[in-house]
């Protein structure tokens, strides 16, 4: 799947969980830059992404997530 398509679908996930659109999708985007994306909402976002792409993360995958770019490449490696 193309990175752009993945990013759009992640963006939809973020909007549905965080209930706002105040962020711009780019590879360097981090959770810190997005209002409300903290350690508590993080797992909800992760679960929703797993459902969206029908994949399963490992805890080790999550530890390696540094920004949107790395999230997209982890997803790409799983589908």
């Amino acid at each position, binding site marked *: 799947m193309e990175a752009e398509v993945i990013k759009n679908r992640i963006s939809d996930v973020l909007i549905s969980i965080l209930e706002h659109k105040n962020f711009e999708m780019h590879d360097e985007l981090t959770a810190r830059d997005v209002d*409300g994306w903290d*350690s508590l909402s993080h*797992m909800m976002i*992760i679960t929703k992404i797993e459902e969206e792409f029908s994949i399963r993360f490992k805890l080790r995958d*999550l*530890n390696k997530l540094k920004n949107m770019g790395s999230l997209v490449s982890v997803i790409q490696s799983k589908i």
Partner: protein
Amino acid sequence: MVFNSVDFIVFIIPVFLLYWLVFSKSSVYQNLFLLIVSLFFYAWADWKFLALLVASTIINFYLGLKIHKSPDDRKRSIFLYMGVIFNVGLLLYFKYFNFFYEGFYEILNVFGVSSNYSTLSILLPLGISFFTFQTLGYLIDVFNEEIEPNSNLLEFSVFVTFFPKILSGPIERAASFIPQIQDKRKLSYDVCVDGFRQILWGLFAKVVIAENCAEFANLIFDNYENNPGSVLLIGTFFYAIQLYADFSGYSNMAIGVSKLFGIQLMRNFSTPFFSTNISDFWRKWHISLTTWMMDYVFTPLSFILRRHQKKGLIISIIVTFILVGFWHGANWTFVVYGLLHGIYFVPLVYSGRMNTEQIVAKGKWFPSIKEIFKMLMLFVLIMLTDVFFRVDSVETGIDYMNRIFSTSIIDAPSAIYGNTTIITIMLIGIFIAVEWINREKKHDFDISNYNIYLRWASYIFIFVLILFFGRSSETFIYFQF
């Protein structure tokens, strides 16, 4: 040797001068000197366990390298488990052995097997809760490939034993600490002055605020059976302020002292009482512990339970907070303290209002009425919960609570009438006002942007308050943890 002692002044002046004048040639000299001084500092406080600290440092150093060099996941896991068993084992033995030992015999009694037992007298090595968490976090980070292990035993030893933080934190992370000691540190006038500011403020919080509040809190808590509910309620107020001023004061002094050596430790408190909900409060209270628990307990746990949605989140939060409580000591009171805080999160999880503005009334002078109301409600909740942090047993805590919420809550609190009360309340007012003004700054007394007259007026004002109202104290609440 506490920071607010003459001993410490006698210790720190030559150490500071030698560090910058004699041992400043290279990072190796600087680190060697810091290590020697740190071991001396630890030995001064607790020489009996110096060998334990050294052994723990060396064992964790080698385990870190072993995890990294192991060719396959199975071997890496084995070395990680060894590290976890070693570090958690140290804590369990020294801190929790008697707790579980007693619990075991109580269970036997329940089943009718009555037996006599006596607890072992195990001394608690100073700082063990802090340095074992640091090394444990280090091994997990190496295992997760978040950091490379440190292959320099000298640097690693400084990371573990660095004297400003060895007794009571902040619980540092290798990723932020070690890079700072790999290069030669240069003396910066601005950083040193900022360190002194933070020390001054920490000293004020400790010897003026915490110690004066302690006078009331001790009097009321130690005699709670003879006081009406109104006085007991006021006692919880003084204790809540004491606890905060004691530990944030300690942390500010530790961070300030560290700055004198060109090393930045992590912020441990960020004006936590200016929060409008419990989640906000815990982002600002004992930050080095809560972020540790978030990363190494909450995140893995909530990951495992993620299919259970909000229920999974709540279980993870409650388990994490029970551990936060239990970390403080082997007593059910701390378990209750943690459990209650975990439960306070439940409404937030269900309402989805976990994330609010972290700095209250950002960019404004005063908060709104609504914000004041929320901050006060939260403060009262925390203040009442702190009763379980203070008392010796859960029964006493419940009894204390029952006595607060009795008809005697409307009695006049005549036991605390007097000039000292008024003075203490005024000092607390100054303390809170300064923290409010600086709530958006890097630390509670970051007044570097004031002009020179205002800066010096502030220093002298705080200094005079310390001279007039300071009380000496030989210990800090957090030393027992």
